[in-house]
């Protein structure tokens, strides 16, 4: 009934073979898959973290550039104001100087015209005086002379 023989050895070999088979066909593939899955999860976590970090960086960058843009805008406006003021001043001063020039020119012209008129009047008066003198010399009486002179003057004035 009891039997102890060389079959112990065969049984040990059997169990060792079974151990190798189970290890190869059950533990190894399942462990590999589990490890792969863990690696993948780890990798996706890292990727998500990296994406978050990138987004944060981008956000900070955008905020910085936005503030820079605002700054530039302000600067540009201020510049434009300064420039505009300068231009305004220049134009005004130019206009002023031009108007002054025009005024002085006009004044000069007026003066010249007046001078001319004056001279003309003088010439006329001289001519008239000369004429009067000649007439006086010609005329017989002073009374007639006066009358003539006065007549002539009144005619001229009209």
């Amino acid at each position, binding site marked *: 009934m009891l039997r*102890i023989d060389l*079959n112990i*050895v065969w*049984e040990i070999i*059997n169990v060792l073979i079974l151990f190798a088979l189970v290890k190869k*066909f*059950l*533990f190894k593939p*399942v462990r590999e898959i589990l490890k792969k899955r863990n690696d993948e999860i780890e990798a996706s976590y890292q990727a998500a973290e990296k994406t978050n970090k990138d987004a944060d960086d981008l956000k900070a960058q955008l905020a910085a550039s936005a503030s820079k843009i605002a700054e530039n805008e302000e600067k540009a406006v201020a510049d434009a104001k300064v420039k505009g003021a300068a231009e305004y001043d220049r134009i005004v001063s130019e206009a002023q100087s031009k108007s002054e020039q025009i005024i002085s020119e006009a004044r000069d012209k007026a003066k010249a015209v007046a001078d001319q008129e004056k001279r003309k009047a003088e010439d006329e008066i001289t001519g008239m005086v000369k004429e009067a003198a000649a007439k006086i010399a010609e005329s017989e009486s002073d009374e007639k002379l006066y009358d003539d002179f006065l007549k002539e003057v009144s005619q001229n004035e009209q």
Partner: protein
Amino acid sequence: MKALAHKLVEELTVETAFTIGGKIQIAESVVITWVVMAIITFLCIWLTRNMKVRNPGKRQLAAEFIVNWLDSFTGDMLGEHALQYREYMSTVLLFIGFANIIGVFGVKPPTKDMNVTIALSLMSIILIEAAGIRAKGGKGWLRSFTEPIAIVTPINILEVFIRPLSLCMRLFGNVLGAFVIMELIKMLVPVGVPVVFSLYFDFFDGLIQAYVFVFLTSLFIAEAAEPAAPRPKKVRKAKKKAVQA
């Protein structure tokens, strides 16, 4: 009655399945072990076929569950220092479990043959002592026989033989006893009743015995694989120094 006894004895003997070269007799139990091996291997291959990292199928989930369960089951018993023996213990658990259950199909369970249980317990004691040597080193392993005190050394040495003997006999006795009772029941009431008893003797007791074998072996390995404790003499000296200081 005589016929019954004769039949029972026939059932209990381990027959030779075939002979190689007229000398080497291959026992029935070894052949049934091959069948058990084939079943386990087939199941493993079937479960782990087409495994995917994403969206695992039901089969893969089952395979992952089984591996995780075996790992935690044997890992808990082995402890943190002996985790590398998990796979062997899982294999033994699967083998003894399937070997005991196979009696349901009317086959003589291989664990009913003492050759099988001797083989398993020999492997267990070799693994236990090897784990001790690996964890403590040759000297540490030898010293572990004198612990906790020198006077228990003979008992510790005896344990090297008692442990595999008890493992072997427990498994053999339980399975043989269950087998004998099942054969008797089958002879007395061939219909209906054996099913109920088979649930207990083949499934429940078979799995319990697989568990007990693995549990005890794991426990011994865990004990052997514990890192060597500091030598008591040194401890005493250190204490003395501390007191003097």
